[in-house]
């Protein structure tokens, strides 16, 4: 018995520990779980009883295995996406579901800026979500003629700007580069993409919003977003890990009120394997209970809806040319083997099935060259894998983190344009992973889609697009139990943190998602509507602001 022990009582505790699936009380000491069970069972540990959750349901804190610190950064700018989205402040920002709504939102943001020349950035736009309507420079001229206005797409690969920005950058009817398309009037449409257009734009603005220099305020917003959605372990899955970033993370993770366990992944693209291996050897011992180093991220291809993912034959459904390699297949093999031999844990981004195939080939070669049990290399997104590829994952000991949110946000585009009906039905094949016993998680890739694991679980259970089309529901949908496992213990396993988080179990960190309703009692199609009260991280309670 200890005076420092707190026993949380709850309406129900869903533990995700298969040998003790349910409980009503959990005893916490020094940030960790000392006992789980009924009041009687945890009685011997009883210290102070805390019954503030007596009408709530506790789950293990959600584990987001693929998201980015950018989620904290973007909320310093107005959101103009088509779907409702919860801001770190807790407010529900309604979707702007048409050009007029976007303009109105931007006009309001413009009115709040005092200096008439400060650039106005916004984010989250996707023409696919508003019936294919494009945002022209003339639309954005209605927002301002005195300041540059820049609207970044949900993918962050395309930006729409106003005439002021077009003119400042010097783009005109004589501009002849691929990333500055001209309209029917022969003038730039205001849509910008690619390195040349971006370079010129950032140079004129004297700022680069994609540069990974962020502040403690951005990190605070990231923690707030996590708390709002019940997330207690969260990744920053592609970071250069500059000295500034390392120091920011180090300092923040030592604060007692730091309300996430942060798992940054070093971007292989900014280092040679040798540099990355040396850097990780240096960083690993600098982590603590809230900061976990050890993962290296490799990006193999682009995105499916941007037609930059690498697809196997017969390629894109609409005949678009095949996508881009971000690393050549032979280089991938070399890098994977080096990281594998160095004992590092790889998270490999593959969207298209050709990229998945190359990643599997690389891991197989590394396993033959240097067999390593329990490496847990994880394929990230892996949206188009077929059963044969899943079977290879199984035999190679590879985990997978599937992007179930795509079913909702881009399922219709995949069905109609990118991969056609058959392949769209097995998009993000959680059912196959489940049947074959492959360890898997599901993710949001926030801020690409909202940081909201319950929504992701809903997507994996219901497999329905935003247009109302069911995709492989009979074959690839998983149960609520399986989906909740995927956003807790499943994702924890893919991060090699399942011995610390992902279930409510003696010895693990006292990390809980506090819900207003029992996910097993609500209808499966209502899973996304459950209100998150807040989180407990290491026994420390954080209430989310209520919308």
């Amino acid at each position, binding site marked *: 018995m200890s005076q420092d022990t707190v026993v949380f009582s709850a309406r129900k505790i869903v533990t995700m520990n298969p040998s003790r699936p349910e409980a009503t009380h959990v005893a916490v000491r020094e940030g960790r779980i000392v006992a789980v069970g009924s009041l009687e069972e945890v009685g011997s540990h009883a210290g102070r009883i805390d019954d503030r959750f007596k009408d709530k349901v506790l789950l293990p804190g959600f584990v987001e295995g693929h998201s980015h610190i950018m989620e904290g950064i973007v909320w310093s700018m107005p959101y103009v996406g088509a779907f409702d989205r919860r801001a770190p402040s807790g407010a529900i920002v309604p979707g702007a579901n048409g050009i007029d709504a976007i303009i109105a939102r931007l006009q309001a943001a413009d009115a709040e800026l005092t200096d008439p020349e400060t650039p106005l950035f916004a984010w989250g736009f996707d023409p696919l979500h508003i019936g294919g309507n494009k945002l022209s420079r003339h639309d954005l001229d209605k927002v301002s003629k005195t300041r540059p206005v820049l609207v970044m797409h949900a993918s962050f690969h395309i930006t729409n700007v106003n005439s002021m920005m077009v003119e400042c950058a010097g783009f005109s009817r004589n501009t002849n580069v691929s990333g500055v398309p001209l309209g029917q009037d022969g003038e730039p449409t205001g849509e910008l993409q*690619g*390195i*040349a257009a971006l370079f010129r734009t950032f140079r004129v603005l004297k700022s*680069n919003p994609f540069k990974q220099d962020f502040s403690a305020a951005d990190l605070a917003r990231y923690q707030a977003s996590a708390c709002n959605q019940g997330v207690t372990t969260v990744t920053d899955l592609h970071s*250069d890990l500059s000295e500034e970033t390392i120091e920011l993370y180090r300092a923040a993770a030592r604060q007692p009120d730091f309300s996430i366990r942060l798992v940054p992944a070093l971007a292989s*693209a900014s280092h*040679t394997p040798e540099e990355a291996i040396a850097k990780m050897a240096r960083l690993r011992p600098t982590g603590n209970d809230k900061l976990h180093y050890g993962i290296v991220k490799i990006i193999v291809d682009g995105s499916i809806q941007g037609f930059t993912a690498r697809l196997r034959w017969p390629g894109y459904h609409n005949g678009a040319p095949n996508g881009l*390699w971000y690393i*050549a297949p032979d280089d991938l093999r070399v890098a994977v083997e080096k990281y594998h031999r160095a004992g590092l844990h790889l998270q490999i981004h593959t969207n298209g099935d050709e990229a998945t195939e190359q990643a599997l080939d690389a891991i197989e070669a590394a396993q033959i060259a240097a067999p390593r049990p329990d490496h847990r290399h994880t394929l990230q997104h892996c949206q188009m894998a077929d059963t044969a590829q899943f079977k290879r994952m199984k035999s190679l000991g590879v985990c997978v983190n599937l992007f179930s949110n795509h079913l909702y946000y881009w399922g219709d585009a995949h069905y109609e344009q990118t991969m056609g009906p058959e392949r769209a039905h097995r998009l993000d094949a959680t059912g196959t992973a489940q049947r074959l016993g492959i360890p898997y998680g599901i993710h949001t890739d926030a801020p690409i889609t909202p940081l909201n694991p319950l929504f992701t679980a809903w997507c994996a259970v219901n497999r329905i697009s935003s247009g109302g089309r069911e995709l492989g529901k009979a074959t690839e949908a998983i149960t609520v139990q399986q989906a909740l496992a995927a956003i807790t213990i499943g994702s924890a396993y893919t991060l090699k943190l399942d011995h610390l988080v992902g279930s409510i179990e003696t010895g693990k960190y006292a990390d809980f998602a506090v819900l207003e309703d029992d996910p097993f009692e609500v209808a499966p199609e209502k899973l996304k509507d459950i209100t998150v009260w807040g989180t407990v991280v290491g026994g420390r309670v954080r209430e989310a602001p209520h919308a």
Partner: protein
Amino acid sequence: MTGTPREGIPVTVVGGFLGAGKTTFLNHLLRTGGTRYAVLVNDFGAVNIDADLIAHHDGTTMTLTNGCVCCSVGSGFIDMLGKILDDRIPFDHIVIEASGVGDPWRIAEIALVEPGLRLNAVVVLADATRIATLLADPRVGDTVRSQFERADLVLLNKIDLLDRAGARAAQAQKLDMALVFEDHFAPNFSRHPIFRQRLYLVGREPIKGCQDTVSLEQLVKLPLVLPPIPKHRRAVIDRAFAAAGLSPNIVAEADAALSELSAARSGVGYSIFHAGTFKNVYPGAFAEPLLIEPPMFITCSLVYSSDFPLTYAGEAVKKVLIQFVEDQIRQNSRPGAELIA
């Protein structure tokens, strides 16, 4: 291709798939001196710049003994290029090495939209021993092909390697096929000539009295920098002089083509080349090249072992490569090049 002439620092983008020889090319460029280069490598990792050129190295940026800088920037590429422009260091030339899977033209477009820059050229390198295989590789063929689409200059590297070791490699079945400039082959080679290319005289100073061509009689009066005897180009040159009963004045022999050019550029002598223009590599360094009269040709052929019949895949690769080379010749309308039907 670059539109109206613009002011600004000239930018050359160097592309090519992995192993095409981009780093070797950069080392040659940096070694030639006289030009103050800023070299940006748009890829992760260390650039293998020859150690004797490096004066200072701080992890990402190398300062070279001749005032050039070289840095590998990966994701910070945009910021680094901006910094170079902001610092107003008077670089004569910016060279950007595209990543092995990148499209060099996309990077070249920066120089079309940034007023402080002007596009000099897109140079794409290819490894002659591997280009056939790469173009036919279903995984990377489209990536490799797209790199050539907007190239001003395509340089085939490692041809020397083939001249010397091709037969052995083919016999060992390590090499399925290759593109070579060669007329004489061991009997166990099959060859498919694709085009022939006239040789040019390349040098720093124009030759008095010569407009477009130069005769062998005029040539023997000039100091020449030529490849050494085992090289095929040398054999062609020697045969032409012998047939005319003349003997050339050879002042130096240089093993690598870029060394020959460096020597010619420094004014040591003139060189005889199958590529007509090097203004993309060494802007303003050479006088207009002169076609040699009577013509000297070297023939570019696809070669493969006659001992082992080409597989079905091999035949497909052969077709792809021939089409590719023919397209390149047509698009670049290279003077002195003739397709062999």
